[in-house]
């Protein structure tokens, strides 16, 4: 344990940050000092104080409580959309890589077409088409992530496919599904874990951007991006705390996953380290 910490201090720090975030999100009802949606205009626009660490907004809601509850939305979008991208992307990649031929050709052209769009623009276009809702934002961010996993998986499958142990396994008649699950998949998990961590960071950032543009969760649900959009008009009156709270929330969450992903990449995937 101590050896691991000394060997990989960045993984430990990143992991601790991510764990802390997850804990806060899970324990939001107990950690948040106030009800995040309760309106009480008699205490509106209060600057930070011992009662309200991050002040209150124009409806008298406690900003800190909204930031804490906002972490739930952000992290669940991160987890769900990355799962969508991961499951579909890895399946496509495995199939394409393992089967090859026409399947591979068609799948990869489709992936190329998805990659042809700047990721955020595609996510915005999909959400706008499906309608501004949290689950549509999740789907959009998930779809955008598919090509990354598909490419990564396919590349790894191609590189291990012709290895001796697989050829041997195939010769002795191991069924293809088992071959994939037992022999190919374990060989490609490391880069996938790195990718998943990094794309959680992207997903959180993308969700924040979508809700900043009004395409995410609807009010009064506390979400970081929408809260910044909502609060920005108060900047001219120098009520900065309303925007700074959720802004720091996004920053910390994205930073934590980026930091962890970066550290994992260095530790798990020496091949990628050079270009890190």
């Amino acid at each position, binding site marked *: 344990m101590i050896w691991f910490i000394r060997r990989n201090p960045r993984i430990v720090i990143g992991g601790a940050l991510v764990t802390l975030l997850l804990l806060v999100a899970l324990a939001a009802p107990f950690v948040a000092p106030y009800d995040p949606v309760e309106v009480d205009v008699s205490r509106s626009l209060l600057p930070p104080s011992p009662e309200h660490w991050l002040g209150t907004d124009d409806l008298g809601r406690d900003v800190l409580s909204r930031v804490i509850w906002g972490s739930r939305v952000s992290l669940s979008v991160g987890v769900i959309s990355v799962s969508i991208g991961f499951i579909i992307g890895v399946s496509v990649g495995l199939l394409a890589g393992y089967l090859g031929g026409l399947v591979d050709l068609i799948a990869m*052209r*489709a992936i*190329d*077409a*998805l990659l*042809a*769009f*700047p*990721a*955020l*623009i*595609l996510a*915005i*276009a*999909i959400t*706008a*088409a*499906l*309608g501004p809702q949290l689950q549509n934002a999740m789907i959009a961010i998930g779809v955008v992530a598919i090509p990354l996993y598909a490419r990564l998986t396919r590349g790894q499958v191609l590189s291990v496919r012709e290895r001796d142990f697989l050829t041997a396994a195939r010769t002795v008649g191991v069924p293809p599904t088992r071959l994939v699950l037992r022999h190919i998949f374990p060989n490609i998990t490391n880069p996938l874990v790195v990718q998943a961590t990094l794309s959680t*960071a992207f997903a959180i*950032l993308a969700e*924040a*951007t979508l809700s*900043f*543009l*009004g*395409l995410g969760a609807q009010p009064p649900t506390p979400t970081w*991006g929408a809260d*910044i*959009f909502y609060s*920005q008009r108060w*900047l*001219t009156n*120098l009520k*900065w705390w309303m*925007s*700074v709270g959720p*802004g720091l929330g*996004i*920053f910390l969450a*994205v*930073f934590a996953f*980026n*930091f962890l992903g*970066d550290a994992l990449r260095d530790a798990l995937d020496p091949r990628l380290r*050079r*270009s*890190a």
Partner: protein
Amino acid sequence: MGGYILRRLLLMVPVAFLVTIIVFALIHLSPGDPLVIYAGEERDEAVIAVLRHEYGLDQPLPVQYVVWLEHALRGDLGRSLRTHQPVVEAVVERVPATFELGLAALFISVSIGLVVGTLSAVKRNSPLDLLATGFTIAGVSLPNFFLGLVLILVFSLAIRLFPPGGYAPLFGEPVDNLRHLVLPAVTLATASLAVNTRQIRSSLLDTFGQDYVRTARAKGLSEAIIVARHAMKNALIPVVTIIGLQVGAIIEGAIVTEQIYSWPGIGKLAVDSIAGRDYPVVQTIVLLSALSYMFTTLVVDVLYAWLDPRISYGRARS
């Protein structure tokens, strides 16, 4: 080389075709009848039926797609539902503002990235290097709309150095234009700057480990000469790739940045059009951003192959 470019161009054709299908499908996925809006509030079912026929919207989707594609290939992408302006004209009008903002951001992110990245590679593990590394991860983690608001708060509202938004034409009021440009350009540049700095640093470190640099060192050449003459040239190859890929990041970033600063470019047009359900405009912007992104990727790959003869022309883009 010519053969390589040709092959890449041919490969682009099926992808571009799929891209148009995705764009077309996206718009027709969305619920709601665009014509109802187009017809205005005093609409009449009979008039709408005529219009629907006129616009071919009563045809099956594949037919509509072919018609749309055919018009698009002729440069006719319809008229904006909001302003009745031809879509192509509306988009082209906005290109200069976005182009200016993008170039400024690219300039900032590349020039500062080069300086800081080089310094941090040369003085590896120095406090400066650590600080720069910390900043780069922070830079990519900071949402640009939040950074934008902080910059407005500090530089427009607190010390009133730059305007908080708006635009002045470059030709006509150049000084005013630059004043308006500073904050959005910095906002847009930050994320790319982080990526660039990091990329330059690691590719320099990579070349430092190569044999010819070691030879140069052994010959007693000064570090400055080694960096400038030997390492930099080779290290720039992956940097070209990264800069090329920045184009995508800048197109993405422009959406939010232009919105925050009321900068009248493509990004703001996109957001306004989404809010106004102006499908022809949204469709065109999504299509154009995909095509220009594909095109830059191609250019980057060609440059890459040209800069580094070791790379086989058959290499797929990563």
